[in-house]
């Protein structure tokens, strides 16, 4: 359960203060599928970063599973990110010198799992995403769609409750973008909360709930209706 109450975030750009988020309140139930849309600079990514504990709000309260995250220190926040949240980025952000399997393994290493269990879990995750045969390849030997699948495997290896995807198809062709969305929606059907930032209205329409952001505010918040399909 994600609960944002009156979250504000501003950045200093030169002499100007830019309000990325102005008193945003939002609640997302477990297992929800939320699309965040809006023009560039409307605060979509900042919202996602704050939900993912990558950024701290200047004002407001963020409760994650009834826990006030703004009180947590760096180490506790890192633990929350590790266990409850998985990130999928537009630019994949794979470590280039590590193989696909090693990239997927990273969160398990940080969490201190032993080598046997790590190996087991990584194999399972890669097989589930259909890239088991690519496990020894480095990212530059993989196609865009394969890279994003490795990234999804890494995001879900700790079995988090929430997947945060920032333009996950922004750097992919239509076909592989389609596959990636299918995978993410599948995870959502298994019960993971999926929050996706996207420019693409077509993708947005697939979500069960859409919010439209403009100038750091939530302009509209709609549940899916039959007319949209």
């Amino acid at each position, binding site marked *: 359960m994600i609960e944002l109450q009156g979250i504000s975030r501003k950045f200093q750009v030169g002499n100007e203060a830019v309000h990325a988020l102005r008193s945003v309140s939002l609640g997302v139930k477990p297992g929800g599928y939320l699309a965040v849309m809006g023009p560039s600079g409307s605060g979509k990514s900042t919202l996602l*970063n704050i939900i*993912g504990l*990558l*950024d701290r709000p200047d004002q407001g309260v963020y409760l994650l599973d009834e826990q006030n995250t703004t009180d947590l220190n*760096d*180490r506790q*926040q*890192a*633990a929350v*990110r*590790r*266990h409850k949240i998985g*990130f999928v*980025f537009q*630019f994949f*952000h794979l*470590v*280039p*010198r*590590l193989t696909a399997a*090693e990239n997927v393994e*990273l*969160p398990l*290493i*940080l*969490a*201190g799992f*032993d080598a046997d269990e790590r190996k087991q879990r990584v194999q399972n995750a890669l097989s589930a995403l259909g890239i088991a045969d690519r496990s020894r390849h480095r990212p530059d030997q993989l196609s865009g769609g394969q890279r994003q699948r490795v990234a999804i495997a*890494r*995001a879900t290896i*700790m079995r988090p409750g929430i997947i945060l995807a920032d333009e996950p198809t922004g750097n992919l062709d239509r076909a592989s973008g389609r596959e990636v969305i299918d995978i993410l929606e599948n995870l959502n059907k298994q019960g993971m909360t999926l929050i996706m930032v996207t420019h693409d209205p077509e993708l947005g329409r697939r979500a069960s709930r859409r919010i439209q952001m403009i100038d750091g505010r939530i302009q509209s918040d709609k549940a899916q209706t039959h007319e949209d399909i």
Partner: protein
Amino acid sequence: MRTFDVVRFSFRSATGFRTRTLLILLAMAIGVGAVIMLTALGEGARLYVTREFTSLGTHLLIVLPGRSETTGGPPPLLGETPRDLTLDDALSLKHSSAIRRVAPIAIGSAPVSWQQRSREVTIMGSTAELFDIRQLSMAQGRFLPAGKPTLQTAVCVLGYKVKNELFGNASPLGKWLRIGGRRFRVIGVLTPKGQSLGTDMGDIAIIPVASAQALFNTSSLFRVIIQASGRDSVARAKKAVLDTIRDRHEGEDDVTVITQDALLSTFDRIFTALTLTVAGIAAISLAVAGILIMNVMMISVSQRTTEIGLMKAIGASGGQVLRLFLSESAVLSAIGALLGVMLALIGTWTSLRLYPDFPVTIPWWSLIAAIGVGMLTGLIFGVLPARRAAGLEPVEALSRR
């Protein structure tokens, strides 16, 4: 995060960034290698001097005519002319119980010729006791006969080099050769012993001291070498020498006595200080290596900003990032230090090959100190970049591509 995984991750990033890794390894290896090499050279110099002195013999005192000490006060009105040290002076020293052997030495240079060959050679006049004092050994024949030192006997002992140059492979024993204007019969040849304190014992001819004095037409001695009866009696022997000579020289202290031990320990102190100084200079090069490591790690942090952001996004705390980067500098400096040790070993080996006389040895303490200081430098200079990495804001780090 498990320690093994941290180290493995560091190894992976070390092999992932070749140029950077090579630079750091090079800096560290040169720093550590320099420390070890320079201390080895200092230690070698110390050993060299010590060895030179012990090759002279043990528990030795050297009596030189004249005083080298300054006494202060007004200069004497009547000039002090030191008396010569004579053969009788030297022989009178034998009466002390603290003194076991006495070898008077008269030295000069004269042409030595046999048949058509002639060589200018250092002629040393001495007695049979020189053999034991200088720890000489014979290749052929025997040394000067023990007998009355005042007797002028026409025999000589040759250094191996002189013998080779005059006689080649033929045996010189019993042959008569000419030294200066006199004829001497060769009774022995020394084994090669090498240099000792500037006198090449190969390029020498030894004759009885009385013969040498007659040859050079002098009654004075170059010096007297004395062997004390034991290590404890060196001080007593020194006093006995001074007392005896003072008695014989009408109350004048006009000889200088140098004890081998005093010389040795002075040189020892000087060379230890020198070694430490050189090691200190080398330590500065290690610090320079440390700064280079810091720079390269700093660049590495900026290059890997995105990676650090990602690590944080997938749940690494600042502390974990710090550990990863610190262990990376530690791993790199450890490997660098090992390479430095190898470099130093190769260096000493080569120098031993080129200059076998100069005993370059790596003292064990310098090995441990160099590796320890090297690792420490790597860690200390790794802290700043690692802290910078740990403090990066994940959002900013990720937004860069």
